[in-house]
């Protein structure tokens, strides 16, 4: 009864359309500057995909994804900063050869824990592993004690706040409020040129698709179905003999790894990393990207990140004094009228027409939205095969059980 195929035809088409948008349409339509901006937006999409897995599928709402994004970004920034801080470039300092902010803070030697970041392989590993280890630690501490739902969300938010305070307070080691700035080259390759930024955009796109495929694979695997079951009826899953905590820790770590990758790509494309990307506000913004795109759809998450950030840019350029109201209006409209975001709009309004166009008697349900009530009837009652998916999904406002 369950489908185990990796992707259905319409999902392949969805992926193909997104690939077309990212790899052909945007590069063809945009100049270097705008393309770089879209590259920046796409780094948030990594986080949003991770959130779809954690929140949409697993029911774990994390308001601290910025921490993992930031850790990935800081790992990359440390490597780039060390490369930029050659004794020649920093000859003007009291201690040449260390990053400029360390010199301003009266440090006279590079801290030992910075040393490994001279190595690119170590840095690339750290970009993934540092967020994963922290997520694993938080996950074990929380989920094995059955802390979940709202409490977990609050704790992740507190961690985001703590991380910001830590980074700002330890400015001799982290660059403080200013962050780590003035990054120049990656193994001698100048990342500030337009050609480099375009290359990075495509690297970013490829990595994003890797994450999308991983996410798709997880959702279609048995693991994905256990997650959805867990989201809707955690106790039943537990009584069926599954170790719920381990599943949660795993998916939380996957989300953290993706966020870390996004952060590293952010650093490479924007050219610096700062604590403003770690704290509570960016973390919540990342949840908003996911909500606008549709928290049940991995493709929706990508479009959500693009749409929200693009609107931010366009609105703030056109109405520098009023743009926040416009953005706020957009969020309210989405939450009120389209609780499943862009993906929900697609499923409710676009997909039926496409189906009608092809005139096929395809099954009613669409698992672009992994509608839980159809796959695992929550109340033991009979599934309602003809009801529209949107009606069966818990409203976006009450995601975590």
């Amino acid at each position, binding site marked *: 009864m369950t489908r185990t195929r990796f992707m259905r035809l319409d999902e392949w088409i969805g992926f193909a359309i997104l690939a077309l948008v990212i790899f052909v349409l945007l590069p063809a339509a945009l*100049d*270097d*500057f705008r393309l*770089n*901006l879209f590259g*920046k937006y796409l780094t948030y999409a990594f986080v949003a995909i991770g959130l779809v897995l954690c929140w949409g599928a697993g029911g774990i709402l994390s308001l601290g994804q910025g921490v993992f994004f930031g850790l990935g970004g800081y790992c990359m920034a440390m490597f780039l900063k060390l490369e930029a801080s050659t004794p020649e470039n920093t000859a*003007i300092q*009291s201690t040449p050869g260390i990053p*400029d*902010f360390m010199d*301003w*803070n*009266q440090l006279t030697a590079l801290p030992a824990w910075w040393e490994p970041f001279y190595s690119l392989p170590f840095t690339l590993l750290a970009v993934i592993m540092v967020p994963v280890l922290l997520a694993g630690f938080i996950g074990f501490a929380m989920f094995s004690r059955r802390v979940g739902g709202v409490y977990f969300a609050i704790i992740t938010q507190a961690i985001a706040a703590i991380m910001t*305070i830590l980074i*700002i*307070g330890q*400015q001799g080691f982290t660059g*403080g*409020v*200013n*962050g780590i*700035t*003035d*990054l*120049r080259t990656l193994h001698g390759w100048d990342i*500030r040129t337009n050609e480099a930024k375009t290359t990075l955009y495509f690297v970013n796109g490829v990595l994003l698709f890797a994450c999308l495929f991983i996410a798709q694979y997880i959702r279609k695997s048995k693991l994905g179905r256990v997650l959805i079951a867990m989201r809707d009826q955690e106790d039943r899953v537990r009584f069926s003999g599954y170790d719920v905590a381990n599943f949660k820790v795993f998916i939380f770590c996957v989300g953290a790894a993706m966020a870390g990758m996004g952060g590293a790509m952010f650093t490479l494309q*924007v*050219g*610096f990393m*700062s604590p*403003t*990307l770690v704290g509570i506000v960016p973390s919540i913004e990342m949840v908003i990207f996911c909500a606008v795109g549709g928290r049940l759809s991995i493709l929706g998450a990508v479009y959500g990140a693009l749409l929200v950030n693009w609107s931010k*840019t366009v609105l*703030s*350029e056109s109405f*520098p*004094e009023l*743009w*926040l109201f416009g953005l706020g209006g957009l969020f309210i409209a989405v939450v009120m009228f389209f609780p499943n975001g862009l993906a929900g709009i697609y499923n409710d309004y676009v997909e039926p027409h496409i189906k009608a166009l092809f005139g096929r008697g395809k099954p009613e349900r669409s698992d672009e939205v992994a509608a839980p009530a159809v796959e695992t009837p929550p109340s033991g009652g009979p599934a309602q095969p003809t009801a529209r998916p949107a009606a069966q999904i818990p409203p976006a406002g009450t995601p975590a059980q």
Partner: protein
Amino acid sequence: MSDDNHLKNNPNSSGPSRRAVLAGGTALTASLFAPKFLQAADFPTAEVNTTGLAVTDDTVTIGILHSITGTMAISETGSVQAEKLAIDQINAQGGILGRKIEYIQEDGASDWPTFAEKARKLLVNDKVASVMGCWTSASRKAVLPVFEQNNGFLYYPTFYEGLEQSPNVIYTGQEATQQIIAGLDWVVRERGAESFYLLGSDYIWPRTSNKIARKHIEDFLGLKVVGEEYYPLGHTQFNSVINKIRLRKPDVIYAIVVGGSNVAFYKQLKAAGIDMTQEDPLLLTISVTEDEIRGIGGENIEGAYACMKYFQSLDNPNNIAFVKAFKEMWGEDMVIGDVTQAAYLGPWLWKAAVEKAGSFDVDKVREASPGIELQSAPEGYVRIHENHHLWSKTRVGKAQADGQYEVVFETAELVEPDPFPEGYQ
């Protein structure tokens, strides 16, 4: 006194400026009028703009890049207002090289990546000829690589920590030594202070400033620092440090608390019975301008001393005209702080440099900038140093209950900017 080491004379400020653009006086525009209007026809666009900037036969476009939303908006709004006023006044006089200034305003949204994004947009897409912008050091650090890579030109208005000298930035505020040293010397000379308690918000500017202050107090003045402490931005509980201050009885509290923390700090200080009007201990700050006093409340900070280069109460014809014009444009209840005045200088300094260079090209404007002088600045005469900072005077003001400062001291000569001060690192 070790003044002599740090307060270098202004060797040559007499004689007419090169183009005699900035002499004389009119009622409205603080003695800023051109003896003869420069006609655009005398400066063909092809000649004054060889690098593809946004310059047409009758307009030139510049960027304004400040936070007008978010936590920094309250501080940066004054800068935006001052820059717009300067642009209006320049346009009323016929513009620059016969071209009206138009501006594109972008919102940095108190968010450093946004600053970098908008800076790139202004330079790459809009090709603006120069940018007036940034406020916090973090935002400047974020945009700096963008300006250097795209060869933009930024006028940065805030007093800041120094340790920087970019070929693509003119720093119209004071670097740290200009703000700190003369004030400390004054308090030692005039008030006989011997011990100091340093405190500040925890980020680069207060830390660097206190580092310089400590070096000056200990190494140059031979006096004592009895405490040094930092609090996170937004911190509002200062009772413990106030207790320590009472315990160690310093002669001077040297405070570099910023933003919202200021309100809590001064209120708690007053509530703890430290009456600043008694000057025991005396409070000297470099972070409270008239703008901040609006939030703190004049009665809470009355009697404290601030070391700045500009106070709204300065009594000179330039400033009286500037304050009048500012209030006419933005409202009677406006106050003007140090940074607002420094922001006002940006467009004027750029105008003078462009006219000296006879070109909008960034490389030529940069080359022309050192030595540019303004007779008409509200703070008085200023001149651009080879290191892209301004020669300007340092002043000490005493806070009044009405939220204004009474100027009690000003350096006799212009203070030389020294962003990489030797002996203070």
